[in-house]
């Protein structure tokens, strides 16, 4: 009896699956399913969107970029922006590989060949340059690029990738729900397989992988309740675009460590430089609001003025240099001829200030989630590494995801994301530690630390292998 029933039902049917008829959540709004959703369209987020959009092994993956800012054409005006970044040769390689560097070249950027760093509390100084080990066959230590230029280049590149990367402007994340791994997979609705993002326009997007690139106050990180080790520095940054007294080659980045914080002059053109002055928040407020003439004087004074020196430290510094000249008689390590250009005026309305902080997420990944850039790690800008660490994340994540796709993996699964986390933490944690230590070491004028850092700086500048290691480390 039953056999006849079975026959009538039709024998041996394959269980061919159809998403539309079988699944609920993913299919209900199949248009709102993306393989990768990047939250935050800043320099790091946008470069990841470009990188993934160009990756051939991911050409069947749908990518969405959520950007809170409205879509407006970014006109690079003749006025230089006060927000600039140091792009290391390593980051340049990434930008080249995603086609954004060409656009930057067509706009403007300034390479620098040397970095000169010195201490306000002693005569110790050090000069970094690619030296014998030319970086990628060029003698450039790095490139000073205005942030809006980088962003415009990335936006331009994203326009060419429209078929692969969808950009939603003026859209913010409201709520992020990640799949609960502890649940029984046989137990619940299929919608819980993916990460779901509730947007401020009421839409819900499902995604295989969510990338948090939404900055130091990352909402993605908070929603995923990932712990973040963070503190505020007792320093604020003052930025400004400065006109120089004379036209020079202007290929040196200058940085002086004052007890209140480092002050840096980064070349923009032959007669323009960008200022990044880290100082106490009160002083920063004062600097931003004072008259332009007085501000220029303050900057010049900060670069030229000598602080009260401790005679003991001075003596020790001299001894160290004497010793250094024995070790390296062919170079004049003690040459004090280098001096920064003098500033003649400040670009109107280019002054601004912003607070500094330190932040490090204890984990960068979860199943279906990865953090990149400042969302994962925020550093003091004294080494100009913030955005470069972010670009490093982008390059690493692209490689990891591409490899996973080649193996046919679900790119949101934790296995390979963990390898991204491990690789990045190996680079990021030493860098952050170094930067934080430098910040602390140079934030004081008491003789003992000054002595230690001065002798250390001279030793570093004398022992070339160490110096080259540092150059290599900082230009990755």
């Amino acid at each position, binding site marked *: 009896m039953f056999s006849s029933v079975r026959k009538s039902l039709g024998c041996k049917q*394959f269980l061919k699956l159809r998403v539309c008829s079988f699944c609920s959540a993913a299919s209900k709004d199949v248009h709102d399913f993306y393989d990768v959703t990047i939250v935050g369209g800043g320099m790091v987020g946008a470069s990841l969107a470009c990188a993934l959009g160009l990756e051939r092994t991911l050409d069947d993956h749908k990518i969405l970029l959520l950007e809170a800012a409205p879509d407006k054409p970014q006109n690079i005006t003749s006025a230089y922006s006060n927000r600039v970044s140091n792009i290391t040769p390593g980051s340049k390689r990434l930008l080249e590989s995603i086609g954004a560097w060409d656009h930057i070249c067509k706009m403007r950027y300034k390479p620098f060949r040397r970095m000169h760093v010195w201490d306000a509390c002693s005569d110790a100084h050090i000069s970094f340059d690619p030296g014998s080990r030319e970086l990628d066959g060029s003698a450039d230590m790095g490139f000073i690029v205005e942030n809006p230029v980088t962003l415009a280049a990335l936006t331009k590149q994203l326009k060419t990738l429209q078929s692969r990367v969808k950009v939603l402007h003026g859209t913010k994340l409201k709520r992020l729900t990640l799949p609960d791994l502890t649940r029984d*997979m046989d137990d619940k609705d*299929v919608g819980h397989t993916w990460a779901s993002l509730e947007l401020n326009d009421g839409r819900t997007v499902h995604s295989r992988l969510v990338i948090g690139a939404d900055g130091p106050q990352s909402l993605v990180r908070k929603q995923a309740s990932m712990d973040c080790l963070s503190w505020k520095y007792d320093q604020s940054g003052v930025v400004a675009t400065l006109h120089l007294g004379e036209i020079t080659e202007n290929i040196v980045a200058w940085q002086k460590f004052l007890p209140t914080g480092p002050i840096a002059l980064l070349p923009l053109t032959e007669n323009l430089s960008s200022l990044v002055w880290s100082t106490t928040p009160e002083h920063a407020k004062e600097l931003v609001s004072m008259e332009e003439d007085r501000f220029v004087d303050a900057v010049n004074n900060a670069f030229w003025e000598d602080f009260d020196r401790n005679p003991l430290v001075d003596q020790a510094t001299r001894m160290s240099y004497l010793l250094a000249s024995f070790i390296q008689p062919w170079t004049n390590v003690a040459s004090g001829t280098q001096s920064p250009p003098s500033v003649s005026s400040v670009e109107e309305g280019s002054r601004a200030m912003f607070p500094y902080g330190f932040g490090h997420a204890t984990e960068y990944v979860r199943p279906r989630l990865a953090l990149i850039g400042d969302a994962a790690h925020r550093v003091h800008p004294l080494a100009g590494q913030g955005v470069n660490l972010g670009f490093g994340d982008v390059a690493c994540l692209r490689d990891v995801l591409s490899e996973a796709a080649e193996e046919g993996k679900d790119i949101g699964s934790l296995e390979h994301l963990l390898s991204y986390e491990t690789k990045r933490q190996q680079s990021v944690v030493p860098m952050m530690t170094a930067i934080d230590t430098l910040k602390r070491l140079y934030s004081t004028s008491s003789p003992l630390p000054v002595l230690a850092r001065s002798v250390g700086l001279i030793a570093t500048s004398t022992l070339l292998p160490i110096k080259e290691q540092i150059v290599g480390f900082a230009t990755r």
Partner: protein
Amino acid sequence: MVRRRNSLVRHIFYMKYTVGHILTVGSRGNKQKQANMAASCRMRCSIRSSQIGHITRSLLCRKHFCSSTSTKNTVDEEEIEKLSRTTSDWWNPNGDFVALHSMNKLRVSFIKNSLDHLPRQNITPSKPLGGFRILDVGCGGGILSEPLARLGAEVTGVDASSRNIHSALRHACHDPMVADRVRYKCTTVEELAEEEPESFDCVVASEVIEHVTDKDTFISASTQLVKPGGTLVITTISQTALSYAAAIVGAEYILRLVTPGTHDWNKFVTVDELRALVSQYGSEVVDVKGMFYVPVCNKWCWIEDTSVNFALSAIKLAETSPEMTSDTQTTQTET
């Protein structure tokens, strides 16, 4: 018959709520049924009833087919029971099958390479297997089927355990990249070989043959399913003293990577035996590689030594004339 009718009535009654129950409909003992029912209660799901009907139909048909078929069956009932798991078991990132998940890195690339000699049609960089029909024998929860489908292949996964097929279906249906390219079927290679002979570019039996009793029939049926010129890929554990130490003592009892009792050393097959067997049924072995598992980092790597885990790929010769078969056999013995 009465029992069957009872269970069928009951399953119609529960149809809207459970699928697991349906899967257990059959001629099993009462005790077992109770256990399965308990399990099925966990497997509540949201699949529409029409779909349930669809699954049931297929599964019932299979039962019917199995009982009436005279095909030689290489599947061991005990093994089916042992290797039947739920979706959570198969896909738990920290579960019993982590090693199987991480093995994909090697076997997916091995399968890709084994198809290199075939003409490609719909290849894109992200779909290097586009256009190929691949059969995954003993697909389990679809751990290997899904990556292959993501790489563009039309994958058919077969498994003798209906529970596994159900697990695989549940998992695959979520993923739009997989769902359209994969179909799962609760059957055996022997049955499929009768229905769809010579219809696959590649037949993969990964970590399966060590659970099969009648290896002759298994290889014969698998070879039958391959299109002439297509490939047969097998990965398994060799029958050596070292494999006993590593796969059974090490992996099952000391490290507990696999549930103790999963493997039976007596069913393992050595590289030479498998080579001979594959050649005997008209395929030419083209590649044999050893695989090594590092439990600490959960990674596999290729090694020369084939005395524990190994992968073998063979090309089915276009003409399977007896002379040719014996030829390959003689070369085999010479080597």
